[in-house]
């Protein structure tokens, strides 16, 4: 079968913040650039980011990139690479000012500077006291950012392929990436994008969990494609959870609800946080609250028929206070839990929010993989940025407002690196003869299979397995059985069947293809989590508790290293954390406490 070939200098997969930012660099450098997106760019999940973007502009009070660097290394529980972290925080101001020039409507101070507000974990003077570092556009920062960058791309003649799904990375025999295959949803037509540079900016894969704040679009397509092309996935055991998502829906209940006096209760209406955090109680930090909730549920004190959630109670608050101070919360309760929170408590569970791991990259945005003893060999022609990539700046835990910074800095950096590599004059490498074969075979198998697995049921099995076996608080025996279970689910995910065989707008087929990506991420997460026998950042194991020898359960002697999950044979290797910053001294290991 003859497959159409579209030739571009660069293709970017994903039109969220990282994708749009890198596209600006390429298009403005005069390179012929395509951006593929499953949805219209301003419907990417970056829109949901409300908090702001961190930059040590010092507009409201004294600040310094070195302090920001310290906070990020500490937040990462020392798993972040210090060269990449220094690179990111030093680029922050430039990236924020550029955005302002693109037309981003940042909140302003009276004297016209970008207004900055405090955000958890961001401190002055190496952890001394909170500092105002977050730049925001009301509570619509991600939304405003995408609009500004989309307009800039339109001006720069970036070519958008909207409602296209990328299918597979194309690598030649030497391992160079020479493009992607993709499917136009409107026609079902598969096309080859033959390129000199391929940038993945496909976002996270939060939908591997049953309870997730992520929109349905976050199916880890870039990670799935990388895995199928033999690229390992880094640090996939690290996922950030939020304590209060609406049970069964995942929709976020803001921390402000507990701030206004909301109380967490178990099935016997007990205010259980009094046992776990006698002083802070319901206002203890996210991880403490999430672990306490999980323990209550695991020990049979959860609520509902399946005893699988706890309650967030604000019925004792004045209804006027709820309406005034917590706008939208009543609507969220009514809409997603069928509960009027003025009269009844809300069902909540710890909910997956952000993926720290991903496709291994250098801070230049170039994808790296182990080869001939070097764990960081560049994969020529391949770049990644944003939540799908692991630079690694977030290490074992991300600080709020560093995600928008990540996608700006590394989106730009990946774009710049691609421009640099392309200006060095490399021509298009020849396409392998079987460039589209893998993709066509996958689609044909899904279309023609009889007696295969149902996509919806398989996805649900995966999500429940991940939630129950590799959730916010982890147990050795549950992780072990989780490995067996997820490998079983994988078998089903390799045998998907759909009823709808039509070409145009076949959403069943698209969802089956997404499922094939999700399972790669789920498997990498479960196996990597089972293997890491310590607690660090967001990966907290019951069998790696806080002891004097290993504070917070962290074991630097054995586990100060990045996980690399090899999807081809399900094996795990490790590579060192880069503790050497670019220009300053190493931020020395310390117990992480706030």
């Amino acid at each position, binding site marked *: 079968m003859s497959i159409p070939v579209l030739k571009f200098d660069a293709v970017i997969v994903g039109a969220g913040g990282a994708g749009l930012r890198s596209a600006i660099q390429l298009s403005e450098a005069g390179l012929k650039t395509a951006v593929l997106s499953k949805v219209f760019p301003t419907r990417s999940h970056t829109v949901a980011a409300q908090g702001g973007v961190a930059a040590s502009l010092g507009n409201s009070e004294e600040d310094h990139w070195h302090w920001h660097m310290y906070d990020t290394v500490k937040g990462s529980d020392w798993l972040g690479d210090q060269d990449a972290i220094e690179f990111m925080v030093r680029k922050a101001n430039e990236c924020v000012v550029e955005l302002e020039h693109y037309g981003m409507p940042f909140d302003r101070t009276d004297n016209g500077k970008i207004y900055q507000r405090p955000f958890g974990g961001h401190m002055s003077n190496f952890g001394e006291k909170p500092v105002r570092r977050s730049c925001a556009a009301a509570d619509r920062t991600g939304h405003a950012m995408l609009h500004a960058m989309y307009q800039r791309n339109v001006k720069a003649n970036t070519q958008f392929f909207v409602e296209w799904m990328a299918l597979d990375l194309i690598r030649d025999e030497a391992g160079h990436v020479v493009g992607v295959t993709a499917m136009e949803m409107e026609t079902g037509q598969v096309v080859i994008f033959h390129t000199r540079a391929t940038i993945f900016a496909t976002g996270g894969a939060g939908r591997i969990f049953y309870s997730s*704040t992520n929109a*349905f679009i976050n199916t880890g397509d870039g990670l799935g494609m990388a895995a199928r092309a033999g690229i390992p996935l880094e640090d996939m055991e690290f996922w950030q959870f939020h304590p209060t998502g609406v049970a069964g829906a995942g929709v976020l209940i803001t921390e402000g609800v507990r701030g206004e006096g909301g109380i967490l209760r178990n099935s016997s209406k007990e205010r259980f946080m009094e046992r776990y955090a006698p002083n802070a109680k319901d206002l203890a930090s996210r991880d403490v609250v999430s672990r306490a909730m999980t323990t209550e549920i695991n020990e049979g004190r959860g609520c509902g028929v399946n005893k699988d959630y706890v309650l967030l109670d604000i019925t004792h608050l004045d209804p006027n206070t709820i309406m005034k101070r917590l706008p*939208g919360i009543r609507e969220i309760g009514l809409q*997603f839990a069928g509960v009027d929170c003025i009269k009844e408590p809300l069902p909540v569970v710890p909910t997956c929010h952000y993926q720290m791991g991903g496709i291994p990259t250098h801070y230049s945005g170039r994808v790296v993989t182990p080869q001939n003893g070097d764990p960081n060999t560049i994969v020529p022609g391949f770049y990644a940025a944003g939540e799908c990539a692991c630079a690694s700046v977030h290490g074992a835990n991300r600080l709020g407002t560093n995600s928008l910074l990540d996608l700006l800095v590394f989106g730009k950096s990946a774009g710049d690196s691609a421009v640099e590599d392309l200006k060095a004059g490399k021509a298009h490498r020849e396409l392998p003869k079987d460039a589209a074969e893998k993709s066509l075979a996958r689609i044909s198998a899904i279309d023609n299979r009889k007696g295969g697995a149902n996509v919806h049921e398989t996805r649900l099995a995966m999500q429940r397995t991940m939630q129950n076996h590799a959730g916010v608080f982890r147990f050795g025996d549950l992780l072990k059985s989780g490995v067996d279970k997820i490998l079983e689910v994988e078998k089903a995910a390799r045998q998907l069947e759909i009823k709808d065989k039509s070409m145009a707008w076949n959403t069943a087929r698209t969802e089956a293809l997404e499922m094939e990506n999700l399972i790669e991420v789920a498997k990498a997460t479960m196996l990597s989590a089972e293997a890491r026998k310590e607690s660090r950042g967001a990966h907290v194991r019951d069998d790696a508790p806080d002891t004097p020898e290993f504070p917070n359960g962290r074991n630097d002697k054995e586990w100060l290293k990045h996980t690399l999950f090899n999807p081809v044979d399900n094996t795990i290797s490790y590579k060192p954390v880069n503790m050497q910053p670019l220009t300053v001294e190493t931020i020395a290991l310390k117990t992480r406490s706030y």
Partner: protein
Amino acid sequence: MERPDYERLRWRCIRRALLELDITLTRFLDDGFDKLNEAQQQAFVELADMEDYDLWDLLTGKEETDDPRLAPIVAMLRKS
């Protein structure tokens, strides 16, 4: 509504920027959309074309619409 048009609408409802809209619109497509007449279905298509936050503000009552074609559908979505 013709199948490709419906499937395109479906994709634009089940892949939003905000999870809140993914859930609400998917639920409505599964439970309420079939019962709408052609004009009402067209009004729903218009709502689904809106920016995520604009639509979410309508559905949570933060904003109101005075468009007589859209208002009844918004009311149905709020109850769905």
